[in-house]
């Protein structure tokens, strides 16, 4: 089977390489994409939306159907991970459990058949089986880093009209901060800050913001995702309405992507138990 796969790979790769010279050269002004489509965007993008970053305009305005369904695909990936991995049983099955007695700081080990403390117990806190000692350097570094990363991601989102960036990148950086918290502390700490329910709700709300903006345009009598009709609600003219609407849908994308990244990480790192992380 591996031989067959190798032969198929070499065959398909060879066909691609042989036909590679039909592709236009990089940056060729005569290529079809540069001849018809790009000049239209270059000439009209700023006039239509007042946003200097053409990539953001193409992503969230001219081709917003594409971006909306990308966000929907990200949500579907989160749902697929949830349905495949999440087990309904509470906590880790089998093996000893470790708890920290908070007033004294002692670590206790409860064997498989032992009686566990209550879930909402104030005196006992569950800790990971592969428990690593408290490391002040890693924890303090991450605690200092996380707020700056979050502000940076909001900057990437808000500055998407002017510089590279936008909803997807901001969402991934924002989600990465929660994942960093889970790695540097432990999974329970991270779940306390952002529970799985919150992550699921945020991802659905994010996609709903994007789709809802399009639906409002449709209800007001324009095409789906044609933002110009929203001008009276955004207190601006048609051009600025498109500019503002790009920001609105990017916020939706950011929420969806951030929540889905956190959600997938919770399920992957704990094998669906949401008990212990990495």
């Amino acid at each position, binding site marked *: 089977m*591996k031989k067959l796969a190798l032969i198929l790979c070499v065959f398909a790769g060879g066909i691609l390489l042989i036909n590679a010279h039909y592709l236009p050269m*990089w940056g060729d002004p005569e290529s079809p994409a540069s001849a018809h489509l790009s000049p239209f965007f270059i000439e009209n993008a700023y006039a239509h939306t007042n946003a200097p970053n053409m*990539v953001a305009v193409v992503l969230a305005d001219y081709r917003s159907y594409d971006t909306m369904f990308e966000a929907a695909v990200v949500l579907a990936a989160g749902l697929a991970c949830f349905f495949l991995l999440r087990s309904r049983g509470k906590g880790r099955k089998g093996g000893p459990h470790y708890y920290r007695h908070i007033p004294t700081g002692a670590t206790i080990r409860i064997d498989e058949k032992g009686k566990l403390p209550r879930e909402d117990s104030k005196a006992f806190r569950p800790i990971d089986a592969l428990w690593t000692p408290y490391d002040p350097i890693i924890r303090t570094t991450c605690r200092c880093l996380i707020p700056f990363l979050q502000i940076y991601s909001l900057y990437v989102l808000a500055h998407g009209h002017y510089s*590279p*960036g*936008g909803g*997807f*990148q901001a969402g*991934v*950086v924002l*989600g*990465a901060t929660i*994942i960093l918290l889970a*790695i540097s502390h432990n999974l329970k700490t991270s779940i306390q800050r952002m529970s799985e329910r919150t992550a699921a709700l945020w991802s659905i709300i994010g996609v709903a913001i994007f789709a809802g903006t399009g639906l409002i345009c449709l209800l007001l009598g324009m095409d789906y995702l044609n933002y110009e009709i929203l001008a009276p609600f955004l207190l601006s003219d048609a051009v600025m309405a498109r500019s503002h609407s790009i920001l609105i849908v990017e916020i939706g994308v950011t929420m969806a992507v951030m929540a889905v*990244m956190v959600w*997938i*990480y919770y399920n*992957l*790192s*704990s*094998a669906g138990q949401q008990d212990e*992380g*990495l």
Partner: protein
Amino acid sequence: MITLDIIVFTLIIFCAIGALTVKDLMAAAIVTSAYSFLICLLLAVMGAVDVAFTEATVGAGVSTVFFVATVFQTTRRTKD
């Protein structure tokens, strides 16, 4: 004269072969991360900064974490 993109492209091919041949899955995840970062560098050289940014965050950042988490929950060494 050897330009930057040729050097980066050579490194990408080495990374791709390395990720396929190495037996330790954790090492494979790290090499895939390096591969993503080099792709990001190549896109930045070509002027597609938006795509490079996405590749850096998604490809080299979050997907590496997902790979590492998966390796921790499954098996460290590949069977084939």
